[in-house]
């Protein structure tokens, strides 16, 4: 099969398509799609604005609730959120909310102060560590309220996982960078190559700023502690390479991806699209328990990716430093564990070898490093209802606080938005 590459999978809606689709929306009152959206974008309102060809108004409606509307329009699991709740879904086809949102964002490229009103300077300063979705959302929301925000980003480019960690066929790098530039356009300063814990410490930020927001995300893919693990490629690095330098990327002929979450799905898709003849995903539990969404599972099956459930790797086989296979053991399911999913146990004597010349792991990210001296909850940074950590004036949001619930871009955006509201209250009222 000819490779379809990693360009954006869904083409943008043309104006006429958007008009027809927007007119299909029946304009529910207190609409279920709005409730289902973690940022509660007023979806019927922006869709009706598309239908009246008020695209600037549509863009503003989206951005009022979610400054990262362009990213969310592409990466949100809409089947599980807004579109999944659409009242037309039961008997017809739900409204293509994600694609309409993307249309409204793309058609209004200048989404800075021309669309988003900015309050006069307040004189307050806030530091944000990490320029992923939570950080940019929080920074933008604070900038709207007139605060001077500086975002510190350890990488060369802003955007966090949107830039580096989401497969290009869902979100191209340019979309993420455009969005970071839009946030800068609201008055936010982004300092790249500037890492908390390396270039400066938390006390430095506390001294220079009125409040701090930590949106540092999570670490590299977790260790599996198996022999030969150093030969396994980190799934996030695999995605990053495909986005930053896909042409030079080495793709195995037989690729095995360990894990069955969103990142694993992206890795398997990359391997398939960039030319691997055989891609196998292995997961120690069954299809029931995997964290990938049903639509993602369908998608990669259609790409030709194979699945081996109830399979756990035990050792990477190699010859002269080159992977030749993965030694695995069969698993069986037991009682539910702490995550609520059924636990898996190895079946004695069931070991077998899967031939592979490239092994990628995507089994969840490491928890945030522990050097900040903040209280933790199940390994994540502990925050209260206002996203404030155990240290007053230091707030946190995004994946680094996601002890519960699904880690997703839109959840991070909502964290940033709610945290910004709390930070604003705190610094303007001087309560501490």
């Amino acid at each position, binding site marked *: 099969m000819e490779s379809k590459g990693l360009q954006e999978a869904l083409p943008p809606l043309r104006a006429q398509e958007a008009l*027809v689709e927007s007119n299909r929306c029946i304009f529910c009152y207190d609409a*279920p799609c709005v409730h289902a959206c973690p940022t509660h974008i007023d979806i019927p309102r922006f869709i009706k604005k598309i239908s009246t060809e008020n695209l600037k108004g549509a863009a503003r409606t989206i951005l009022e609730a979610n400054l990262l509307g362009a990213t969310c329009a592409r990466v949100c699991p809409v*089947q599980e959120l807004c579109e999944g*709740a659409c009242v037309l879904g039961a008997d017809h086809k739900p409204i293509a909310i994600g694609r309409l949102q993307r249309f409204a964002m793309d058609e209004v490229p200048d989404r800075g102060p021309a669309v988003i009103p900015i309050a006069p300077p307040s004189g307050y300063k806030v530091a944000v560590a990490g320029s992923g979705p939570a950080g940019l959302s929080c920074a933008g929301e604070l900038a709207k309220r007139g605060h001077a925000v500086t975002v510190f980003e350890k990488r060369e480019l802003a955007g966090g996982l949107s830039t580096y960690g989401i497969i290009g066929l869902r979100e191209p790098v340019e979309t993420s960078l455009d969005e970071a530039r839009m946030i800068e356009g609201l008055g936010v300063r982004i300092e790249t190559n500037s890492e908390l814990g390396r270039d400066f410490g938390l006390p430095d930020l506390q001294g220079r700023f009125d409040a701090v927001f930590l949106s540092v995300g999570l670490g590299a893919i977790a260790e599996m502690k198996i022999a030969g693990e150093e030969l396994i490629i980190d799934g996030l690095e695999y995605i990053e390479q495909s986005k930053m330098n896909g042409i030079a990327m080495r793709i195995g002929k037989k690729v095995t991806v360990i894990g069955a979450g969103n990142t694993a799905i992206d890795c398997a898709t990359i391997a398939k699209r960039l030319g691997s003849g055989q891609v196998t995903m292995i997961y120690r539990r069954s299809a029931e328990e995997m964290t990938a969404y049903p639509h993602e599972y369908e998608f990669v099956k259609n790409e030709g990716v194979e699945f081996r459930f109830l399979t756990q790797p035990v050792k990477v086989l190699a010859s002269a430093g080159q992977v030749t296979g993965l030694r695995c053991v069969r698993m069986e399911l037991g009682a539910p564990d702490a995550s609520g999913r059924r636990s898996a146990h190895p079946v004695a004597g069931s070991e077998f070898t899967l031939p592979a010349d490239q092994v990628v792991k995507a089994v969840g990210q490491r928890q945030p490093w522990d050097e900040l001296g903040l209280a933790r909850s199940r390994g994540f940074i502990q925050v209260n209802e206002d996203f404030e950590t155990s240290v007053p004036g230091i707030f946190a949001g995004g994946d680094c606080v996601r002890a519960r619930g699904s880690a997703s871009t839109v959840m991070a955006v909502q964290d940033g938005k709610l945290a910004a509201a709390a930070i604003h209250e705190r610094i303007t009222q001087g309560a501490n």
Partner: protein
Amino acid sequence: MANLNINFAGIRSPNPFWLASAPPSNSGAQIHRAFEAGWGGAVWKTIGPPVLNVSNRYGAWHHGGQRMLGINNVELISDRPLEVNLREMAEVKRAWPDRAVIASAMVESKPQAWHDIVRRIEDTGADGLELNYGCPHGMSERGMGSAVGQDPEYCREITSWVMNAARIPVIVKLTPNITNIVLPARAAIAGGANALSLINTINSIAAVDLDTFELTPSIGGKGGHGGYAGPAVKPIALNMLAALGGEGVTLPISGMGGITTWKDAAEFLLLGAGSLQVCTAVMHYGYRIVEDLCDGLSNWMDAKGFVTVADVVGKSLSRVSDFKDFDLSFRVVARIDTGKCIKCNLCYVACNDTAHQCIDLVNAAGQVVPPFAYDVRSNGKDESTATRPQTRVREDDCVGCRLCYNVCPVDNCIEMVEVPSGREPVTWDQLSTSNPEVTQDWEAMKAYREKMGIHVH
């Protein structure tokens, strides 16, 4: 299979569907194709004095992604020479003896001019003649068209000139651009007309261009009122049709104004139309639509047990009444089928904002909850759909206005259910006679309501 043949004031056609006098019936070649497609008749585009048309003639009203719910035009009567039209009319009639070929004419308001045109039309073998008293633009500025239809005396006089000369059936086409359609209708009858047709197009301005601030269509920067037609005018046409029936007009009436489907057609028949004329739907989709007009009408007639079109004509006229004769004690309430309801809440917001505030949102525990009651931190399709309240009508407070029924996007989800009011039937007319003070004095009305148990919300 129902028999769709009609005999309209002596004009026979194999089905009741005629092309209205308009662009679709502009030439012999077009009407020839229309008859091949199955049209029962055609009223030829109006012939008369020399004219010159302008370029850019149609404006349209589009809504919600639907094209051409209304169309307006500033096209004049036929701009083809009279001789050409008359020759083609004769050719078409010869080729299609079973179809109705009806001429439409409009000439200078002089007896001789009308006598001449009547004679020349009859020479073609046409089955009938329609007098265009309705064209609202251009021709009316020259004292023709709606200038005639809007003046009952003029209408009567010219009709009588025509009737003096005509041997074929004469239909007078009425303009809707008047306050009371009955007056010109009676004038036409007084002038001796054999039949009436209505409605011609309605005065209108289609749109204003938001970039140029010019009217649409813009004729070199200028625009003006044009004749409005299409699906949007159907209710106006039905009302005028019913008004004539209600006033005891027994002359055959050819109905038109927004007929697009066989359902529209059946409604016109039920309110007294003996033949049906179609223009806009044909201009939108072409002659081919006649197939479903006939097929759908025939199937509906079979289902309802009607054998001929004449059996249908006027069947609903006995239902046409006035407010003063409606039963004030008749009571319906809205009932929502929760099995069909998709929980869009359109009924809720319509009732709450603009009607009588009698639809509640009820949660799974049966409690009435306000809209937007969910926690801002909750999300996801499961949480959204599982916690979504159900709309429920408080029937005691429902006045049965039927707004919710009309806004509901799901067919048969909201039903208007008749419930006993517990009061004897009474009309406003009867009340005005039996308790005149109640109809004149608010205190008396209050006492009457209390006595009868009428609660107004």
